[in-house]
């Protein structure tokens, strides 16, 4: 019995394909993704990248909407502080999403499901690491139901 049950559990775990939405700054993290690709680094196809002109273009609505419509994890990736293409954008990102991250944790969203990080255009390795890291953790957590619209089908 237990063997069959275990097999079923393994099967279920395999059946779970996490969906991660990554908002990437056009000038650094998106180029970082490109570099990861051209360097033939592996990062999973479960990551759906949405290119934004700057990490501070991301609105809190976007993050919640991603969770509402099926995302199991959300990533915001921008230039390192000091390197913003528009001089100051990511300083705002830092304040805004520091607060949002804490707020989401406060209402009970597992912390691993929402990640903000700085990834420059030259950090193809870091890009792959961050993406794999989030994916791994989300995989362990399983599908996200919190904040999900019950009427939405994946």
């Amino acid at each position, binding site marked *: 019995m237990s063997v069959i049950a275990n097999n079923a559990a393994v099967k279920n775990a395999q059946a779970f394909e996490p969906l991660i939405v990554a908002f990437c700054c056009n000038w650094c993290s998106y180029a970082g993704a490109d570099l990861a690709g051209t360097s033939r680094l592996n990062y999973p196809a479960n990551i759906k990248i949405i290119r934004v002109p700057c990490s501070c273009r991301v609105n809190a609505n976007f993050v919640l909407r991603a969770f509402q419509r099926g995302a199991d994890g959300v990533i915001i990736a921008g230039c390192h502080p000091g390197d913003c293409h528009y001089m100051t954008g990511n300083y705002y990102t830092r304040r805004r999403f520091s607060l949002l991250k804490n707020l989401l944790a406060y209402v009970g969203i597992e912390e691993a499901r929402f990640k903000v990080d700085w990834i420059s255009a030259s950090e193809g390795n870091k890009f792959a690491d961050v993406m794999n890291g989030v994916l791994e953790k989300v995989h362990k957590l399983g599908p996200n139901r919190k904040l999900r619209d019950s009427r*939405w*089908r*994946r």
Partner: protein
Amino acid sequence: MKKIAKDQLALLWEKIDQNYQLFLPIAKEKAVNFSTWKEGAEVDLDALRTVNSPKNIIFPQTETYLTFKKEGKKLGLEVVSRDEEYVVFGVRPCDVASFKLLDNVFLGEPVDKFYEENRQKGLIISQACLNPEETCFCNAFAINPESAPVGADVATWDLGDLLLWEAQSEKGKAFTEALSDLLEDVSEDDRKKLDEVKAGIKDKLEDLPLVHVAPEKIEGGLKEIFASEVWDELYQRCLGCGMCTYVCPTCHCYDLKDYNGNGCGERFRCWDSCMFSDFTMMAHGNPRTTQKERVRQRFMHKLVYYPNNYESYACVGCGRCTERCPVRLDIVKVIKKLGGERNEL
């Protein structure tokens, strides 16, 4: 007439719950609302009025009409219907009266099939108000809080340790029959006690601060009231939230919306509020662009338009808006401002 000891009520809930979905006034922290009964639920029969009116049950805030699903080139449609018969226990006479007002709208031609089904599947058990509060003014609409209201299948009275029970409709009688092992016949003493309590209610009503509200004293026809200057002043403090319309047992405006759920979805009906800027939004925009027009719409509907159509005010004096409006722009003040007040009782 039957009776049941109050400490036996949990058994009664349990029994009803076996065959019906049972709604009761249940306290969740400070707010008491009609919700489905579960063992151990904090049933509050003393709360005079729930935050949400029981309109929520017969006319839910969101009600799915149909679901659709795309399968290849085909579109699958499925009409949703209410699955279970239900019982609402502890509906106050004002709220029972509000059901009739909703019936006028939804059961008149053309009949609203979804609403009709909701009504047919429900059984209403009223509970008389023996202790009306300062915000109550149901007597202004000829509602007797101590009575067995028309429209209730069963009427009950809470006499402290006893609950008196009287079936009124055929449906209520059959329901009472099915519960006969828990209900016993009342004694002559019980009847007497009920009569005494009922007689005492009149004094209590006359003592209430809003007893002078009298909408029938409002003078003027539709056009005069519409053009009245009082609206210029009344609307000013309105914040434009929809609380009054959502807690109101008689507000019944709704919107139809579709939800696109990625290759599937649903069409649903949801409450709308004339206080909102997108109420009755049409291709050309909104017919009521200022808050003054919206406030006027709400009260004209309650006090003029609805009575013109159905010969009855669309208010039951439950006092929810009186208690809840953040800026105290309630229907009592509007009625008084329009001259709806009597000097002596």
